[in-house]
């Protein structure tokens, strides 16, 4: 049996579930972001132990799904971002706790201005060997 990993069994699975939204989906932080984009990155705290016993590693994984759109005009960009957020929320798979959506902020990545909002999600991961 192949050992599980957060990369293969959580972030990639989540990225696959998000593939239907209108944007580029990354299960990691890419070197260059092409908007509109959805980026899955670790949140803080990242891993939390909540269950009793330690015979196997089971932990809550906190992730941030960053929704990014091009920041060209303020009302248009905000509308695009809201639509992207709603489409993401609709396809987050079962077994995920969805937290809050943080306030949109303008972030410069390279020469591009992006309007970005973070969606906080968490799920429980079990390590199998």
């Amino acid at each position, binding site marked *: 049996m192949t050992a599980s990993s957060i990369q293969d069994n959580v972030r990639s699975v989540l990225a696959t579930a998000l593939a239907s939204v209108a944007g580029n989906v990354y299960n990691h932080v890419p070197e260059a972001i092409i908007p509109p984009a959805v980026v899955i990155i670790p949140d803080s705290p990242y891993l939390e132990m909540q*269950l*009793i*016993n*330690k*015979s196997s590693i*089971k932990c809550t994984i906190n992730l941030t799904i960053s929704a990014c759109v091009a920041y060209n005009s303020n009302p248009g960009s905000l509308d695009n971002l809201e639509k992207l957020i709603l489409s993401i929320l609709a396809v987050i798979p079962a077994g995920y*706790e969805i*937290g809050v959506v943080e306030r949109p902020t303008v972030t410069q990545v390279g020469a591009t201005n992006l309007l970005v909002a973070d969606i906080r999600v968490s799920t*429980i991961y079990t390590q199998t060997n």
Partner: protein
Amino acid sequence: MATTVITGRDLALTIDSKTYDAQATSVTLVNAPTLVTYQTIDGKAYKHTDDNWTLTVTMLADWGASVGAATSLCEAMWTAANSAPNTALAFSLTAATGAVFSGTVYPVFPDVNGTGADAQSITLSFQVVNTPTLTIS
């Protein structure tokens, strides 16, 4: 003596031979003793007359999550409470230090709940039969 720390990760819990480690977030085995108080001429006097133990388990709900031989803990407890409510189930609470608390509890129906943002979490409060046995290995 070196300081000993026992955390929840050092515990193992089984009820009716089913392991609860994968779902339980906390477990408490607590006694509520009955003390009769007498007001004597010399002051208060106490008499311990009874013990009432409770096993409380907080766990993530796993309704409908039976896979092969691994039965959903919620479903198993529901079935036990529904079909044989007066048949006590064996439990054991084991610490990594070698202490084992064992006894029997009566099954209870798990509650069903759900909130918009959080994981479905339930609390099972079991009536323990008599006083649990403590075994130190």
